[in-house]
Structure formats: structure tokens, C-alpha cells
């Protein structure tokens, strides 16, 4: 982490200015608004803060949640219940607020545990968030006179401050949470969220604890929503089951979609605009109003998936004079004393596989594979298509993949570890396809890869990325060090391959699994990658397992080759031995007798 300096980054400056402008607007607004609008806006501003959290969850991180209203409701009921049944006063208010935060956090953590685990589908997670407010409402209904059941609680003692005060409270809450949210999504951590949305699997394989991040995010979003709910109840002096209901949860989603997901301010303004407008219009045409919002919602989802905000900001950008966007330039430095350089892992081989097999239904893709990968060794895995090479990689990098067998990484049994845990043990894996994180830049991708080791900053962007020497080598060899602020979707195929490799190396693995790292590359690019790989084994003591079709390439860099055929190891030896083997020739040329295996 760089030493904090007195000068603010541009992002922080913008945030500060925006925050101050917002606070000024909040400060003066009550003097220009009549009582009615002040009343309406106080509630709306609190809801807008909840919408902001929905946008972070859904727009940025890709968690489609119907249940954010539940946490709003929990906050509201914490206020209502404490003031109604236990007592009223500053102490009780703080206690109630703590209760709101605590119970929202606990419920969110439970929901996260249910909804997010390695391999859970996003649809399943959405259904869980839908079930949450439904179950919660049911609980409130069955609470009898304690929760007020359907009638809710009303008329409890509360602070009957003047409207201006409440407006300032609600407004500054919205402005401050939105500023925090704005900084969050623009921070390094925000990039992690986007990475999870764009490619959850790949994030996990970079050692990013996806499920934990999602759960933590849910907890924080829940806490913000519960504070909003608490304030809502304290102001309006009413709590009712519908504050926790899924109807409100859906409405929050609709506002987010209409405002423009992943724009943060879009949903906030949409919430304020639409909720105020519906106060006006729904009275005049209750049914039509709902129908129109429904139609607008469907239309926006189908035709304008990014909502209305991009339209407006596009117009704004066209109207104002072109400003030069200063690209975010990152400093790449060498990571100090990395694990890789330390080299030694004791006597145990970095990778040991015993009796590994993998069955898909009745189909046995791998059977009884025994393999040892030593440090400083580049192990080539070859074999015809469908021999189980990629499955082998998958079994090494995800503890839940294999059907039977034992696997040791640096002498630790991987048991049924999730991919990010396996990364923690020292396994790095590159993939066949190169769809990385399309909208992230090269430096953001690299930062992502350093998440496990360097952590990330929540509200700021660090401009320094410490990378181990081999990563730096790759960046230089492929020319990526000149393109750090380029979005990955604009890179050439070769550069994407290089970036992929640099990212995996940035996780400082001791076992590196490479699945056709040179596919689709030109000859010079292959040679460059080849020499980096050789260097990795010789100088940094890595164990590399390489799947490759190009035997020339394997011959040039590999010490030992394993031939996989129909899920079993056919032979093992030096490249020369293998190439000379009639058996292997037969397999490759198709002469092989089926019985041989």
C-alpha cells in the first residue's frame, strides 16, 4: 500500500465535490419545498438509499435481489418494536438502531450462506432473495399484537422533530451513503465486484473468495437498508408488513432498471423521480399508473438494458465541451520477496495425485491417474482430443470435481476445497478460452489477480501494482506493459493470452496449470511464452503442468511428458522417448488397438 498523501486522487475529489453539492442541495431544499413535498421527499430519499444498495448488488455485482426490502423492513420494525414495547429515549433509539443493524446483518449473512456457494446458480440465488421477504412478511403477520400483524405498529413515541430536520437527516444519509457507494464502485474493490459479475468462475480461480465477498456485500447493503428503514419508521411513526414485502423489493428493482443499472446515480434519481411522480399520479389513475410502470419496465429490460441514465449522460456528454479523459495510469512495481522466489517447499513434490478418477454419469473420463509433479519441472500432458486432459486440470484446481482419488498440493490434501481455496494452496490455472473480464483494463485485471495476496482497498484506487518477476516478464514480452489502461476486450488474441498468463502468475502459484497457453498464437509469440515458462521452472522453481497439442513446442521446453489416452496414463517419459514410442504414434495416428488401453 502506498503512503497516503495529502493530495486527493481525482476520484476522491469528484466524490468530495459531489458530496458537498448534494449536502448543499439537501440543506437548502426544505426552504423551497412546501410541506407536502418535504414529507414525500423524506420517505423517498430514504428509499433511494436502499435503491442505491440494490444497484451495487445487482448492477455492479450481478446479484439479482428481490429481497432488499426485507432489510428495510427489519430496520423499520426494530424501530417500531423497540419504541412500542420497550422504551423511548436516546438510549433506546441507539439500542434500536443497533438491533436493526445487527439483525439485518445476521439475516443477510444467513441469506448469503443459503444463496451463495461455489456452484450455486444465479437463478437459485434470486429465488432465495425472493423467498426472504415473503417468509419475513409471514413472520410479521403471525406476530400478533407484538408486531401488530397486518395493521403494523403506529403511534409509538418518536422524535417529532420539524420536517426540515427530518429532511436533513434523510438527505444527508442518502448523500453520504451514495458517496460511499460511489467511491466503493470506483475503488479497486469495485473492480472486483465487476469482475465477479462478468466472470464469477474466473474470479474464483484467481483466488477471489467470491461467495464470501457476495455475502459480505449483502450484509453491508442490508445494514444500509436497515438504517434507512429505521429512519423511515422513526419519521413516519408507522411500520407495516408491506415495508418488508417483496412488492417493495420488486419496486426497488424496477427503479434500478429504469434508472440504469450500474450507474449508481441513475437509480437514485430514478427512485426520487418515480416515487415522487407516483405520489402525484397514482392517486389520479391508480391502475393505469401501475400498468404503465410495468410496461416501461418490460420495455427497458428488453430494449434498453442499461436503463435511461446512459441516454441522459450521453446527451450531457454531447452537450458539454469535450474533456480529455485522463486514463488511469498504473505503476507496476516488482513485488518484494515473493513466495515464488523463496522457492523451497520442503522435500515434498508440489503436486501429487493418487488414484484420481472422474465419472460423469456412466461415462468415465479419468480413471486411476497417478502423477507426481516436481518443483522445477515442466510436465507436458499430451493426448488426443477427449483423452481427459482438461478434466485432469479441472480436478486439480477444484476439490469438488473428482469422483475418487487423493490430491496433494505442497503436501496438503485438497479434500473438497473450492477453487479459491485451492488457489490459496498454491495452484494457478489458465484456461483454454480467453474471455477475461471484458470491460476491465489490463491493470485492473492484474490488480484483481493480486487480490488474494495484496488485498484490496475499499474506497480508493491504488495506482501501484506489485507483481512478481515472472508476471513482469510476460508483460514485457507481450508488450502489455504499454497497454495497461486498455480494456481487455480491445486486446489482440496474443495479448489476451499473455495477460491471462501474467494474471495467473501474479497469484504466485507453486503449481501452474496451463491449458493450451499458445493456442491461436503466432510463432514469435509462442517462443516468447516458451522462454518465460522455461525461466519459471528453472529460476523460480515452479511445477508447471502444460496441456499442449503442439509437440514441437512441448519438445522445446518440457522435461517430461505424460500421454493421456481415454482417461488413463498411457505412458510417461522424456519427449524423445514419447515421440519415439510406437504406441503413442499409433494413438495419434489412429492406429491404436482399442484393447491396448
Amino acid at each position, binding site marked *: 500500500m502506498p503512503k497516503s498523501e495529502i493530495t486527493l486522487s481525482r476520484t476522491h475529489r469528484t466524490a468530495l465535490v459531489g458530496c458537498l453539492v448534494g449536502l448543499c442541495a439537501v440543506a437548502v431544499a426544505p426552504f423551497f419545498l412546501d410541506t407536502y413535498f418535504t414529507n414525500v421527499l423524506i420517505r423517498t430519499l430514504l428509499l433511494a438509499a436502499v435503491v442505491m444498495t440494490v444497484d451495487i448488488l445487482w448492477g455492479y455485482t450481478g446479484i439479482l435481489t428481490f429481497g432488499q426490502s426485507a432489510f428495510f423492513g427489519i430496520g423499520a420494525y426494530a424501530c417500531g418494536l423497540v419504541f412500542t414495547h420497550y422504551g423511548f429515549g436516546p438510549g433506546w433509539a441507539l439500542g434500536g438502531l443497533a438491533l436493526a443493524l445487527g439483525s439485518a446483518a445476521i439475516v443477510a449473512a444467513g441469506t448469503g450462506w443459503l444463496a451463495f456457494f461455489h456452484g450455486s446458480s444465479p437463478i437459485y440465488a434470486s429465488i432465495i432473495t425472493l423467498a426472504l421477504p415473503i417468509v419475513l412478511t409471514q413472520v410479521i403477520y403471525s406476530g400478533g399484537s407484538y408486531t401488530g400483524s397486518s395493521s403494523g405498529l403506529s403511534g409509538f413515541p418518536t422524535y417529532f422533530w420539524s420536517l426540515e430536520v427530518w429532511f436533513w437527516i434523510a438527505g444527508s444519509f442518502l448523500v453520504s451513503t451514495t458517496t460511499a457507494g460511489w467511491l466503493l464502485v470506483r475503488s479497486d474493490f469495485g473492480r472486483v465486484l465487476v469482475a465477479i459479475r462478468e466472470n464469477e468462475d474466473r474470479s474464483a480461480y484467481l483466488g477471489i473468495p467470491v461467495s464470501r465477498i457476495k455475502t459480505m456485500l449483502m450484509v453491508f447493503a442490508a445494514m444500509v437498508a436497515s438504517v434507512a428503514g429505521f429512519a423511515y419508521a422513526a419519521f413516519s411513526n408507522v411500520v407495516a408488513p408491506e415495508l418488508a414485502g417483496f412488492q417493495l423489493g420488486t419496486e426497488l428493482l424496477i427503479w434500478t432498471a429504469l434508472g440504469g443499472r450500474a450507474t449508481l446515480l441513475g437509480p437514485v434519481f430514478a427512485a426520487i423521480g418515480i416515487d415522487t411522480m407516483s405520489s402525484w399520479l397514482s392517486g389520479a389513475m391508480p391502475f393505469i399508473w401501475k400498468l404503465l410502470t410495468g410496461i416501461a419496465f418490460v420495455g427497458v429490460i428488453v430494449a434498453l438494458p442499461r436503463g435511461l441514465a446512459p441516454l441522459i449522460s450521453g446527451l450531457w456528454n454531447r452537450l458539454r465541451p469535450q474533456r480529455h479523459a485522463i486514463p488511469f495510469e498504473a505503476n507496476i512495481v516488482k513485488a518484494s520477496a515473493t513466495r515464488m522466489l523463496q522457492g523451497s517447499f520442503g522435500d515434498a513434490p508440489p503436486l501429487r495425485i493418487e488414484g484420481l478418477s472422474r465419472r460423469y*454419469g*456412466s*461415462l468415465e473420463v479419468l480413471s486411476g491417474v497417478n502423477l507426481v509433479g516436481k518443483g522445477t519441472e515442466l510436465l507436458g500432458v499430451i493426448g*488426443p*482430443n*477427449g483423452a481427459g486432459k482438461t478434466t485432469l486440470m479441472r480436478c486439480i484446481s477444484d476439490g469438488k470435481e473428482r469422483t475418487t482419488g487423493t490430491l496433494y498440493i505442497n503436501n496438503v490434501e485438497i479434500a473438497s476445497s473450492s477453487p479459491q481455496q485451492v488457489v490459496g494452496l498454491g495452484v494457478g490455472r489458465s484456461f483454454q*478460452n*480467453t*474471455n477475461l473480464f471484458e470491460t476491465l483494463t489490463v491493470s485492473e485485471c492484474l490488480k484483481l489477480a493480486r487480490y488474494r495476496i495484496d488485498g484490496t482497498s475499499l474506497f480508493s484506487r491504488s495506482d501501484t501494482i506489485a507483481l512478481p518477476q515472472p508476471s513482469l516478464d510476460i508483460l514485457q514480452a507481450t508488450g502489455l506493459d504499454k497497454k495497461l489502461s486498455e480494456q481487455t476486450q480491445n*486486446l*489482440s*488474441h496474443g495479448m*489476451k493470452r499473455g495477460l491471462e498468463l501474467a494474471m495467473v502468475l501474479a497469484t504466485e502459484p507453486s503449481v501452474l496449470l496451463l491449458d*493450451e497457453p499458445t*493456442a*491461436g498464437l*503466432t510463432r514469435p509469440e509462442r517462443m516468447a511464452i516458451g522462454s518465460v515458462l522455461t525461466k519459471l521452472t528453472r529460476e523460480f522453481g515452479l511445477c508447471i503442468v502444460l496441456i499442449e*497439442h*503442439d*509437440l514441437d513446442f512441448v519438445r522445446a521446453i518440457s522435461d517430461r511428458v505424460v500421454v493421456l489416452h*481415454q482417461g488413463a496414463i498411457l505412458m510417461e517419459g522424456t519427449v524423445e522417448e514419447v*515421440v519415439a514410442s510406437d504406441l*503413442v*504414434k499409433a*494413438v*495419434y*495416428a*489412429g*492406429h*491404436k*488397438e*482399442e*484393447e491396448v488401453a
Partner: protein
Amino acid sequence: MSDAILTLSDLTSGYGSASVVRDVSLDIKQGEILAVLGKNGMGKSTLLKTIMGFVSPFGGQVILRDKNVTKAPPHTMARSGVAHIPQENTLFPDLSVEDNLRLGVNSDRLFRQRLPAIEPLFPRILERMKQRAGTLSGGEQKMLLMCRGLISHPRLMLIDEITEGLQPAMVDRMAEVLVRARDDLGISVLLVEQHLDFALSIANRFMILKLGEIVEQGVVDSQVTSDQLSAHLAV
């Protein structure tokens, strides 16, 4: 032009930003087997997938009997008489052999009509109609693939490494089936292969694909031997 079943002109395609097939031009006449040779990862399968419409080309054209089908979706290609036999994930392993065959034809009526004609070619397959396709041996699965391809009465077959992992007897059997399909039924075949002897034993012409480009092509005659070409394809 008119005697070509399939014409490719300057076809370029790939995935994302990577060009895997580059400027490939070729044509196949009726009743001709064209072998596309080359090592793994040289773009052969992608070439077939592009023709079939699974991969949309970056540039160039695919002409099927005077009709531009460059952007046609796979099912349209299949229905225009192109049978694709891919290399991986070729069967529905949990469906029965019969169901797999039925999927080769558009209607069950045609299926029943055509089945008897296919029977002599694949006697062993048809004995196992009710068995799940996944339980067949590797060789039998390949035969089932051929059988499914032929029952659709294609004009053109795109065959991807059908001999991979086959024992010699089966390879010979496969060669026989393909030759009969060409000579008796007038079916054209675009044959992607690594098995040189097999390919050269049945192909009329060959071309070699390297890093997505055609680097050599010619007519298969006694002068062309597998040793000559194997330089390009060496293990």
C-alpha cells in the same frame, strides 16, 4: 461454378479476437471427397463449424450450390443437405441408439422408410437400437455417427476426425462406407483428418491447413504418399 456443391471464398473466422481460420478458399464437387489435413489446433474443426454456421465468419463467403449461406444458421444448413459429424460431443449419450438415429431425420415416417436401406451398412448398430448410445464402444459410436449422417440423405458431409481412436478394422470399414456413400449415393465429403493413410486411401483431393491457412493442396494420386505429407503433420 454450378458443379460445385460447396464453395468457400476467402473465409476467415475465429473466436473473439482470434482468427483461427484465415482466407480459406476451396470448392467441392459432387461425389468428391476432399481431405483437409493438419495437426490439432490448426483450425480444421473451426473451418467445419464456420461452414455449418456455428461460428460466424469474420469475412468471406460460404456458397452451397449457388446459394449464399454464409450467415445461415446450423439447422438450415442441416436441412439443406449438409450433415455435420463433429469430433466431440457427437452423440446424445443418454438417449437410445434409435433416438440418436431418429434425430438424424426430420420426420419419423422418413426415418422408418430409410432405415432398411441403411441396415446392410451397419448391421451391428441396428441390433442395439434400444441400448443407450453412451454404452456403445468407441468404434460403435463412430459407426452410429456415420449411420446418423447417412440417414439424413445428405448431399454433403462434413466429417471431423472420425477415425480417431478407431481400431484398424473399423477404420477400413469406415473407409468402405465413405467410398460407397460417395460412389453409390453421390455424396460429397469434406473430410477433416489426422489419419493420413485413411484420408489418402479415399480422398480425391487434399489440402493442408496450418495455423488456419491452406499451405498446400493437390490431387490424390499414386505420387502423393503419406510420407511426403507427414512432414507437415509429423507428431
